[in-house]
């Protein structure tokens, strides 16, 4: 169902009504920009985080996985203009959106106690998904940090694929937990009236 609606997003729309509301359409570029602009905050605190899925998770928690997938695909596309190796990892963004959609429907953004473990779970899934792409397409050299942790894994005696997973896991595990915690904080800080304008926001924080 979700994939069919993404297809509608990408295909010429015949004359008539729009497949998505204008509000959700306006949310997509803002969410992509959030993902990319947060790097300035991360640089300021000098933590080994990416937070590049924040917009995807936030858009999903507000408006569901269809909007989240659109945000994820667009984030990868814009990142690709900066660093072309981002594009094959678009699959990870789609999985993040689907996972965040399930989490939002289950109300797992209701507190940090539920959001952080859910983010840790996503960290494992994201590293399992990105490892084969990183290994077979790029030989585990996608970013400097991941390449260095992969080299550390090799030095610890892990096989090549295991070392690649180790590199991805180290970067993704904490990053996704912090991202989920940040999105939960944003959803709780949103005025109720603003949150109610998005279809999934109140359910994500367990308010309905």
């Amino acid at each position: 169902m979700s994939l069919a609606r993404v297809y509608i997003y990408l295909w010429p729309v015949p004359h008539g009504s729009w497949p998505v509301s204008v509000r959700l359409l306006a949310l997509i570029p803002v969410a992509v920009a959030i993902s990319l602009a947060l790097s300035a905050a991360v640089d300021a605190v000098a933590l080994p985080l990416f937070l590049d899925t924040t917009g995807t998770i936030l858009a999903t928690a507000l408006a569901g996985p269809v909007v989240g997938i659109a945000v994820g695909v667009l984030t990868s596309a814009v990142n690709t203009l900066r660093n072309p190796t981002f594009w094959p990892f678009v699959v990870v963004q789609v999985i993040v959106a689907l996972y965040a959609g399930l989490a939002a429907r289950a109300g797992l953004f209701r507190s940090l106690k539920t959001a952080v473990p859910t983010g840790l779970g996503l960290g494992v899934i994201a590293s399992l998904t990105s490892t084969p792409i990183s290994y077979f397409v790029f030989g585990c050299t996608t970013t400097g940090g991941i390449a260095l942790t992969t080299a550390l894994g090799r030095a610890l005696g892990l096989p090549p694929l295991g070392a690649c997973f180790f590199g991805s896991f180290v970067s993704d595990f904490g990053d996704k937990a912090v991202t989920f915690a940040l999105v939960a904080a944003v959803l709780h800080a949103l005025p109720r009236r603003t949150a109610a304008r998005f279809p999934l926001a109140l359910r994500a924080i367990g308010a309905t």
Partner: protein
Amino acid sequence: MSALHPFSLLAIAAALPAFAWILPAPTGGLATAGLALMLPLVPDPRWGVRVVRLALLTAAPFWLFLRLLHDGPTTVAIGGRITTMVASFVWLVAVLSPDRLVEAMVARGWSLAVAYVFAATLSAVPVLKARARRIVEAQRCRGLSPRGSVANRLRALRALALPLVLSALHEVDERTLALETRGLGAGVPRTPLAAPPDRPAERVARWALLLLCLAALIWRLA
């Protein structure tokens, strides 16, 4: 080269990495990397040298990390492919104007939603990045210290990220109103003002590139 139809530029930038991965390594990857690095030099060598230099600087760390993790032949095999991908996209960014791409998409009958989302994202990213930097400076002026223990840094991150994300979300309301005021909710197709010309020869060349990719893939799998 930038006078080519945006879809033709996209087709070239997509086909070169596809060939790099389909053709046998290392010859295939190195040949496509050479082609991708030659592309910017075709119209204006002086301008092209700057693009090639940027592509080589972007690709260099990958070679370094590949050498760190792999033996010589594997480094050359994967390095050629990655260099093709990097050089193709650096060239694409240098020659492709987002405005022309949006006009071409609208002229081809693509949903205005796709065109809007694409153009709005490209304009929103630098605006929000500048706002993020201003928030960092403002919070520092108020005494926020983003150093110390990990817990302290995470608290500082929250103080920096929340204002940025909340202000961006409030902007969604303004954008919604602006889009509805301009009649985007009506679903009426937009008339492109300056649609880029799409010559028959370019259309044929795009189809030929696609068929060549498919043929190469079948040859490799056979």
